[in-house]
């Protein structure tokens, strides 16, 4: 048993940390998050240069062909930097959906472009019902001459306003179970009838959209994978993206703990550094325990999805449940221990506090995943 990272993975971590410290410092994060794009063409090109936009795509599709334990390492560092922009949506949602469900032609067309930084793809899955199960997919796709007509509304869609194409989860049939009859479509952003509205979000580093499809006509070739069998690949995409999200959350939580510890060493009150007081010290210790456990369960989930371990789904739900609570509490603790300065716009803590909140409610919060754990352990 080896529950540690390889030398290559440690190298990826140190390279990424240096890269984000230089290229994605807080000033740039703030500049980028204030724009609708959340990134700049120059920064995006640098991510492509590093090979990170194709990290998980096989070399045949212009990628680097690494696994999810590697993704975990990189995402931790992105979370540490609170990096804004459509990386998560393009690589781990849209891109992964094409890799998972797409035909050879679709993969050849899109994945190399994504890896090169020339295309972005969003995943339009959730709807106003905010359900994470198959029953939540109600957007209608009815058969028409030579293809399908899509009508309905998708909500909480990451970065659809930047996408060149959107993977849309739609219902082509009402099956005996909600999982049957879900189909995925790859719809070019410019298709007539597809409207994207950018929504104001609490976490400015995450851009959420409403995507409305009104009688959108697509050819049969737009199907991503088999008709009516789209739920299984979609669930696999979401399972793995959830691991990546957890890793990003761990990185953010660690950064909050680091900032808080440093501050507690230098901020003096009543003649002593505040870190000398047990009220502060003990809360910092609680934060450390949560950060370490969050990493442990996330690393396990990363390994489990890479290996397709029998308990992979359980591992992912355990991770999302634990990490959702941990990041929320750690980032709130960071603000508390900083006092007034932690509540200012100027201090970076609010970037992490808000990212904790947006991440908590992406792909199901702790309560949702605890119930899933209960089901998966046959309770």
């Amino acid at each position, binding site marked *: *048993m080896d529950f540690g990272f390889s030398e290559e993975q440690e190298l990826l971590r140190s390279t990424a940390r240096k890269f984000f410290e230089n290229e994605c410092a807080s000033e740039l994060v703030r500049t980028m998050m204030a724009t609708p794009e959340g990134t700049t063409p120059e920064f995006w090109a640098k991510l492509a240069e590093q090979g990170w936009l194709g990290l998980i795509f096989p070399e045949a599709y212009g990628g680097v062909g690494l696994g999810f334990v590697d993704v975990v390492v990189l995402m931790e560092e992105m979370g540490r930097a609170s990096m804004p922009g459509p990386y998560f949506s393009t690589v781990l949602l849209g891109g992964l959906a094409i890799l998972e469900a797409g035909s050879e032609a679709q993969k050849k067309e899109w994945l190399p472009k994504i890896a090169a930084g020339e295309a972005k793809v969003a995943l339009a899955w959730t709807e106003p019902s905010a359900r994470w199960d198959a029953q939540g997919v109600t957007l209608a796709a009815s058969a028409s001459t030579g293809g399908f007509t899509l009508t309905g509304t998708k909500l909480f869609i990451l970065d659809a306003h930047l996408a060149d194409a959107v993977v849309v989860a739609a219902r082509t049939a009402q099956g005996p179970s909600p999982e049957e009859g879900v189909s995925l479509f790859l719809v070019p952003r410019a298709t007539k009838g597809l409207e994207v509205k950018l929504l104001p979000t609490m976490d400015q580093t995450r851009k959420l959209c409403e995507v409305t499809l009104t009688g959108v006509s697509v050819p049969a070739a737009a199907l991503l994978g088999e008709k009516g069998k789209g739920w299984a690949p979609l669930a696999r995409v979401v399972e793995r993206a959830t691991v990546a999200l957890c890793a990003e959350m761990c990185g953010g939580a660690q950064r909050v703990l680091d900032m808080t510890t440093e501050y507690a060493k230098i901020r003096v009150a009543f003649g002593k550094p505040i870190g000398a007081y047990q009220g502060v010290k003990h809360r910092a210790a609680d934060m450390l325990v949560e950060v*370490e456990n969050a990493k442990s369960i996330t690393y396990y989930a990363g390994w489990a999805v890479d290996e397709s371990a029998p308990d992979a789904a359980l591992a992912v739900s355990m991770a999302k*449940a634990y990490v959702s609570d941990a990041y929320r509490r750690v980032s709130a603790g960071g603000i508390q221990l900083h006092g007034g300065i932690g509540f200012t716009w100027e201090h970076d803590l609010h970037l992490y506090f808000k990212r904790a909140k947006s991440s908590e409610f992406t792909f199901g919060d702790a309560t949702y995943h605890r*119930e899933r754990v209960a089901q998966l352990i046959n309770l």
Partner: protein
Amino acid sequence: MDLKLTPEQQSFRDEVRVWLGANMPRDWTARVMASADVPRPEAYLLLRDWQRKLHQAGFIGLTWPKEYGGRGLTFMEEVILHEEMALAKAPPVLNILGVGMAGPTIIAYGTEEQKRRYPPKILSGDDIWCQGYSEPNAGSDLASLQTRAVKDGEHFVINGQKVWTSLAHVADWMMLLARTDPDAPRHKGITYFLLDMRAPGVTVKPLRQLTGDAEFNEVFFDNVRVPESQVLGGVNNGWGVGMTTLMYERFALGFGLQVRLRIGLDGLIEMARRLEKHGASITKSPVMRQKIAQLWIDTECLKYTGARAITRLLKGDLPGPEASTGKMGWVDTHQRLQELAMEMQGPYSQLMKGTEWAVEGGLWQYTFLRSRANSIEGGTTEIQKNIIGERVLGLPKG
């Protein structure tokens, strides 16, 4: 990262599994179904036999060097053994303080003669060990201990008192910290002794705890003469030696604790399946499902945080921050588990052993009460947080 076992580890697992299948004491599960983390008096003889059997089969002291009776294996085999014991709901190792603390400390600091003399009987369970650290006025602030040891020829004469001493009533030997130089700075004048519990002048007085059991003791020393040959690691060097013991405690007991937690959790889930509350099965209640799932998650987190610590150990790296969190995490999870057991039983949680109305023979009542000590023994949660704050995070001392 690879959590799969090597073929050698796999075959060790099979060896353990087969052996446990054939040798588990049959009535154990019925007698102590809940997570009794410390042996109760009635289980003492059974546990002594159990350790003997484990030892004969070569399963005690896996990581100890071969020349001192161990098998020279890695912590990985230790982990596998503990996991298999948990799966089989096997009884714990009685002489855990000897195997986990005294033995490794003697092997690290002892003279060759000491290393030949003590460790083999620790493994076989012939010598049960207890730990004489805490005193009435020296608990969390251990360095303020006052038990005196005065040199007299080739002996030291011990006077003073220890308290909260688990297993002292059955122990043959004690790891004793006593003050040999009262004028030196607090940490500098302490010596680590190996004390024969049968020496004249040693009095053990059981201390009845809130469970009603007397598992802890007070130990009094009245002019107890200890030969020089029973000093471990040099006179006035006891603080460093004692801290080593505590480090081993963290690792050795850590695995055991996590395993007992898993046994307790499995028991809790079995109970949830059997019990009804307000006319419906407990497992149907969304609130209870949330609480059980959280315990499951926390238990798994402890396991994988432990696995990270073991990995560093196996690679020869220094322990990272993850190594220091285990005790606290375990305490918190175990106390919540025991609280939940009471919540599930509702009004029945009030009934103790001795009535057929008591759920599962009243065993959970004992483990619930016992769990209150978890956040005090082996370093209080407050001290653990100080240690994490100061040694891991580098925050200033208060």
